[in-house]
């Protein structure tokens, strides 16, 4: 089986986009010194909101916008709770992740009137770029054929975030807070405001990640459909040490594992075996890079 085809690259792009969008949000938080493990729940609420709004209005774009809004609203709990009130960020994130599962399950039944999985012809998905003018570009058209504009946006955001962090005063302040909040405070930087803003932006990105997953990768909502992608994004942030380029690399590992899994399924391997592959590979990648970089990173400690 030849994996180095344009079709495989296209499949990897689609598979990595939701993880990448969430992970970029997580990276922003990591750089400003906030350990954000609430990505999964924000992404799941993004999925549901995108599907519900798209089904009601018939517009995928409205669904995407609403999903970003839902992500921000969920992130508000973390921003106010863990940044401003100093509540335990881990427990708070466990709570919001749980809330997302309960709330989407409840609304699936009470608003969309079904359980398990919702899909409908009313549901407008994101337009694949292959059916637009992009499709007629050689090579690029093939690679992006099945991708939505959100996939392209996720790749653009890698550059935007990298430039923001390394080349703008706000980015410098943000990194300064992450390195040493007390020093930043003594220079008159409003630490809490930067941290809250980062958490909210991460929420919006997780909402977009959910929209891409539910309106781009597939066109449906099913309970707990994020299936750990938000946690893989947390791992991608750690793998990439919060650097956008590296985070992209980590997301590619996950995307390739998922796309490769689909191929193997086509060859008759049971779905359960290929379902597990992305998580195992992501964990292995984290371990391998950590072992190599062990001497250069932080001292020991428990869960951060």
């Amino acid at each position, binding site marked *: 089986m030849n994996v180095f085809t344009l079709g495989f690259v296209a499949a990897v792009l689609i598979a990595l986009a939701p993880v990448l969008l969430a992970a970029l949000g997580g990276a922003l938080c990591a750089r400003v010194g906030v350990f954000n*493990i609430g990505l999964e729940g924000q992404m799941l609420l993004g999925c549901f909101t995108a599907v519900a709004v798209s089904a009601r209005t018939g517009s995928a774009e409205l669904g995407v916008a609403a999903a970003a809004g839902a992500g921000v609203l969920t992130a508000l*709990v973390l921003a106010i*709770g863990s940044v401003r*009130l*100093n*509540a*335990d960020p*881990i*427990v*708070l994130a*466990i*709570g*919001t992740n*749980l*809330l997302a*599962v*309960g*709330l989407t*399950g*409840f*609304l*699936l*039944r*009470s*608003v969309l009137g079904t*359980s398990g999985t919702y899909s409908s012809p009313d549901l407008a998905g994101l337009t694949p770029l292959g059916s637009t003018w992009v499709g007629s570009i050689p090579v690029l058209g093939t690679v992006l054929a099945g991708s939505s504009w959100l996939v392209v946006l996720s790749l653009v955001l890698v550059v935007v975030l990298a430039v923001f962090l390394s080349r703008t005063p706000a980015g410098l302040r943000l990194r300064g807070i992450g390195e040493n909040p007390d020093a930043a405070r003594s220079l008159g930087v409003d630490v809490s405001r930067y941290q809250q803003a980062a958490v909210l932006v991460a929420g919006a990105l997780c909402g977009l990640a959910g929209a891409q997953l539910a309106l781009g990768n597939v066109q449906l909502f099913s309970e707990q459909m994020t*299936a*750990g992608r938000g*946690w*893989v994004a*947390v*791992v991608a942030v*750690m793998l990439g040490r919060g650097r956008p380029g590296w985070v992209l690399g980590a997301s590619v590992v996950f995307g390739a594992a998922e796309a490769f899994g689909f191929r193997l399924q086509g060859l008759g391997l*049971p779905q*359960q*075996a290929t*379902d*597990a592959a992305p*998580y*195992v590979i*992501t*964990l292995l990648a*984290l*371990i*391998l890079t*950590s*072992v190599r970089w*062990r001497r250069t*990173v932080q001292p020991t*400690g*428990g*869960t*951060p």
Partner: protein
Amino acid sequence: MAILRRVLTGAALPALVASFLVGALVLLSAGTNPLTGYQALVRGVLLDTNLPYLAAAFAPILGMAVSFAVPLRMGEFNLGGDGQLVLGGITAAAVASAVPDAGLPGFALAALAGAAAAAVWAALSVPLARWGRVPIIISTLLLGFPAVSFASYLARYPLTDKGTGIPQTPRLPDAMHLPSLPASAYVNVGLVVAIVLFAAYWVVDARTGTGLELRTLGANLRFGQYVGIDVERRTLGALAVSGAIAGLTGALIVAGPPYRFIDGALVAPGYTFTGVTVALIASARPAGLLAGALLFTALQVGGTGMERDVGIPRQLTAIIQAAVVITFVLIVAVRARRKVVAR
């Protein structure tokens, strides 16, 4: 009395009240009268016919609460309960089918094998943290996905009950069914095992050096290291025990009605995260665990009754659970701030 004072002045009670208000808001926004919903919820708990379900759901919820509490006592989070629960269940089913004529002693062996498999899987997160610097909270959770997939694969192909078309293992031989307690068809010896596990946790936590060391590490990791506690050994032990309890819980579910491992049946009722909620708001304190497990079992069973009765989705109880966790930790934080300001 100290316990009573802690309950009355702690953050759990206001968190519960606030969460039921949140639940009421959710009901209102879904166009339902909250009173109708909560009445049905209470009816669901108190209905005679539901009491056996209540007692049957209590054992796995208490088990998963204790499982999450053990590492929480030292400040670590085992979020892979679902994977460990399922691994324990499928291992027990597999071993039991290998010794079909061994009766209850045979199942005891199978349950131990299930506990051991889950213990190893949970403890795997410790070398991952040591050598790979993956936080335990993340590795336990991510390891849960392959575990659930693996069990699902086994129940579908190698261990499947051929001819039923359902992803499930064959029914356990009658001699391996856990004996029912007197006067109930649904409540079996599993409840006794769960209570014994809980009692053991209480004794170890309150009366042994190991318990003291775990609590010390939970209160202040650096201090624990300073006084010479072997952190790595304690972490490994806590995660292994946590996994073993989850695995045993899974095995006990399999030996109760309908006496087999069905794909998804162990995960669907949400025992794991109900246990997580209980342990979090009890701060892993034994007395709180017992009270919390009772309360949240009632909530879960009531939710099922409410869905059947007035058609309100039982996911409402998951929303209330999540709201309890969120408001609890917020109330704790706000009180801590006030204390600092007052000083």
